[in-house]
């Protein structure tokens, strides 16, 4: 099964700062996604990370706030910019080896904003 390394696992940040979360997969994958999960809630898709091109964002999420990079088929980053307490959440990356097949998730990044 997939080995997905997501860093950091948790962080506490100051209001107005930015944090970059990394997602590294042990082998090449077709699709990489970024989700947000509020405590006790479901998962909400932020964007699809596209290799070599701009990410595809879902309604309510914008590139200026959540810039995403995917330089190759095994690595992606999500930056949470100009953070406010409302950004406190768990951020998860997931991957699909083949479109339509199961998604495999990283362990998540628990982010708290003071």
């Amino acid at each position: 099964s997939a080995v997905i390394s997501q860093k950091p696992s948790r962080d506490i940040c100051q209001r107005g700062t930015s944090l970059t979360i990394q997602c590294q997969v042990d082998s090449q994958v077709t699709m990489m996604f970024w989700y947000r999960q509020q405590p006790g809630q479901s998962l909400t898709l932020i964007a699809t990370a596209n290799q070599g091109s701009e990410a595809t964002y879902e309604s309510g999420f914008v590139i200026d706030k959540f810039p995403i990079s995917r330089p190759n088929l095994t690595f992606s980053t999500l930056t949470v910019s100009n953070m406010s307490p409302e950004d406190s959440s768990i951020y998860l990356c997931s991957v699909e080896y083949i479109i339509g097949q199961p998604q495999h998730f990283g362990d998540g990044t628990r982010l708290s904003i003071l």
Partner: protein
Amino acid sequence: QQPVQSPQAVILREGEDAVINCSSSKALYSVHWYRQKHGEAPVFLMILLKGGEQKGHDKISASFNEKKQQSSLYLTASQLSYSGTYFCGPPMGGNEKLTFGTGTRLTIIP
């Protein structure tokens, strides 16, 4: 258009059976099911395809009725390890993007 799951939460004794339902307002072509234990990442259970029923685990099975836009997950003779939150996740966008349901928290007690 997030799929709605029912019940929201259920508590069972070990050995009892459970059914979790997932209902969508949009047409479905397949459904994924995932389980997330507290503090952990979601883990894939199974995929159901249009016109099919699939058993992904020993005592966990599921059905998919595309006409009714519903899927159900069946847990038989539940074990303590079944505790967690269950999410359905039908693809509802381009590139097979999943839209996760509202979730069902299952607690199994001895």
